[in-house]
């Protein structure tokens, strides 16, 4: 067996390492079974923050690789959706654009765009975030890392798309000569809420999908049905009368999607209740998402 010492001699050391390893400057890592509620290790997330950035950067890079139009799709995709839905809304007989307030009558496209931006972000976060763990099982079973980053990083490419969409949106708005309402200053806050809500959903769905692969099939339905139940396309005012519209707030997506519109369009009316409901929903979903993810995380490698 000693024969192979010669193998080592054949290869010269390639570089010099720092020779002294100071083990005792390091905190001791204790590995033992944990039960029940496992708090989020914020410190660990912070020390590994670069990893989150790299994972998100990877998704952004990969997303438009080998597409001839490349990043132009980030501009084209929402515009195409807006175009299609504008045509549907304006269709004779449907005439849903008639239920829009007077100042929006000529801006159906803008109205749709404002709802589609948050919705496209949420549905992408649910779709890719929900499958992020099962699609990258090696990251669960071959290495240890703060696993919250895996679903969280998928939000990154959605965020880039959302920024591009907003750019297009504002160019359109200025071009069309539409003056938004003063609540538009709340927009960054709404974006933050949307991101947090999507994070919470991505945590829950990705963790649940590891155990219940059924969600692979269910997630596309959630995003499709959710779009209609959240009145992203149809103006909810054309369906619900004032008395019943609070039922809509039971839908976690409705408040946030509508807040995007109500903070920009004067005629649509500022709706603080919708904003409040989306704050509450976001807090609840995010807290549950973190809790559920941490609780199931330690079994990921065993069942992935």
């Amino acid at each position, binding site marked *: 067996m000693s024969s192979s010492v010669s*193998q080592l001699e054949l290869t010269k050391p390639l570089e010099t390492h720092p020779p002294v390893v100071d083990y005792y400057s390091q905190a001791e890592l204790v590995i033992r079974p944990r039960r029940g509620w496992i708090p989020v290790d914020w410190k660990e997330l912070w020390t590994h923050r670069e990893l989150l950035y790299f994972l998100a950067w990877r998704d952004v890079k990969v997303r438009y690789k080998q597409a001839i139009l490349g990043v132009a799709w980030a501009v084209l995709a929402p515009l195409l959706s807006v175009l299609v839905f504008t045509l549907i809304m304006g269709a004779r007989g449907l005439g849903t654009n008639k239920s829009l307030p007077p100042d929006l009558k000529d801006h159906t496209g803008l109205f749709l765009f404002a709802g589609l931006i948050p919705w496209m972000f949420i549905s992408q976060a649910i779709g890719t975030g929900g499958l992020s763990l099962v699609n990258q099982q090696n990251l669960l079973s071959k290495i240890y*890392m703060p696993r919250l980053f895996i679903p969280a990083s998928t939000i990154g490419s959605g965020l880039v798309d959302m920024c591009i969409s907003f750019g297009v949106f504002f160019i359109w708005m200025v071009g069309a000569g539409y003056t938004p309402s003063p609540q538009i200053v709340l927009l960054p806050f709404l974006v933050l809420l949307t991101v947090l809500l999507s994070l919470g959903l991505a945590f829950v769905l990705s963790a649940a999908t590891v155990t219940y692969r059924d969600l692979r099939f269910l997630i596309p339905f959630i995003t499709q049905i959710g779009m209609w139940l959240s009145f992203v396309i149809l103006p909810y005012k054309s369906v619900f009368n004032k008395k019943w519209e609070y039922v809509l707030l039971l839908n976690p997506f409705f408040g946030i999607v509508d807040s995007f519109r109500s903070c920009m369009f004067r005629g649509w009316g500022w709706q603080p209740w919708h904003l409040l409901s989306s704050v509450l929903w976001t807090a609840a979903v995010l807290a549950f998402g973190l809790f559920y993810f941490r609780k199931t995380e330690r079994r990921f490698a065993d069942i992935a």
Partner: protein
Amino acid sequence: MNNTVISVRGLGKAYRIGMVNPKHTNFRETVMEAVKTPFKRMRKYDDDFSTDEPDTFWALKDINFDVGQGEVLGVIGRNGAGKSTLLKVLSRITEPSEGEARIRGRVSSLLEVGTGFHPELTGRENIFLNGAILGMKHAEIKAKFDEIVAFSEVEKFLDTPVKRYSSGMYVRLAFAVAAHLEPEVLIVDEVLAVGDASFQKKCLGKMGDVVKHGRTVLFVSHNMDAVASLCTQCLVVEKGRASEKLSPEDGVKAYLSLTNADGSVPLRERPRIQHRTRPAIFTGLKITSGSGHPNVVQTGDAVTFEIDIENCEDLKNVTCGIALHNERSQRIVFFHTLFHSGFTFAGSKAGKLICKVPSLPLVPDSYYVELVMSDGYQFIEKVERVDRLDVVFANTLGTGKIPSRGQGFFVLPCDWKHEG
């Protein structure tokens, strides 16, 4: 011991059978199952299952050991013995069911090279991504970038997506990133078994380097050469339990005797290839040599294969062969009755075929034995991987050195001199 870096006490990992490999066949079945036995299903995925239940399988049980600073602990054992589970628990990929482990210092684990590599990204991009996944800081990767590239030997293809790489290039790049990690504690699983022979040697050299600089390493391998040369201590894992810490020599010996005491499936019941279905002919194989251990032979030693045969009263004029394959499934030698005179075969109900090889000058490695019997046109029976034969080092050349795996297949004597 006050320089203990890793300390493991009573560590155990239980799986519920059925949970290791849950069924996710189709949606209808899943729903039906959930409707029929909703609580069973929920219980199945409950985290805190009782470990006394009969369907519990202990992949690891009652593991205790300490690893001191600068030690290189080899973990060896057969497939399924629990080595990988142990590494996964220590690298925090999966949580133990009982006991605890304490580790000091930054831990990096390499259970696979190239974890997180994305095929669409270029080599350059993957270096950064993989480095980050392995726990390196951006600045650290940047500082070592040139070194990593030089080590990987893929400079020319740095801006090519790795999906266009050959598998060799891919693995070299992946290992190069991993090799430049500088953790205090390194946990490695068999990743040296990658790439071509010269790259393997380079990796082994790099590992040796890491070891020389006082890092603590936990090293799982089937490459007994690497274990013997790199490790300072050895742990033999068998059926979820670990031995005492042994010296590498004793560990390798213990491992070899384990591999040979394989009581799994008797040869009689092993799958085989037959041209026309008939009862099993090859029913037993015994490999003996001067080493004293069955299935272990020293390079250059004589070895005897005794094959038990049955159910061949109807056969005449058959030919028989024994082939040795290495772990990469290359056929290394073929002992066949066609090439050797003096073999006659008259059918009998039961009997023995004996093949004596006066000298087996193979490089130290593990070889797999394949048995064949044919009628000159077709296989009558062929059994692959009947057994393992471990060829171990012997000082046959008198220098204390012989070629090792990857440097050639045979250890043959020769004379060298310089004229002129």
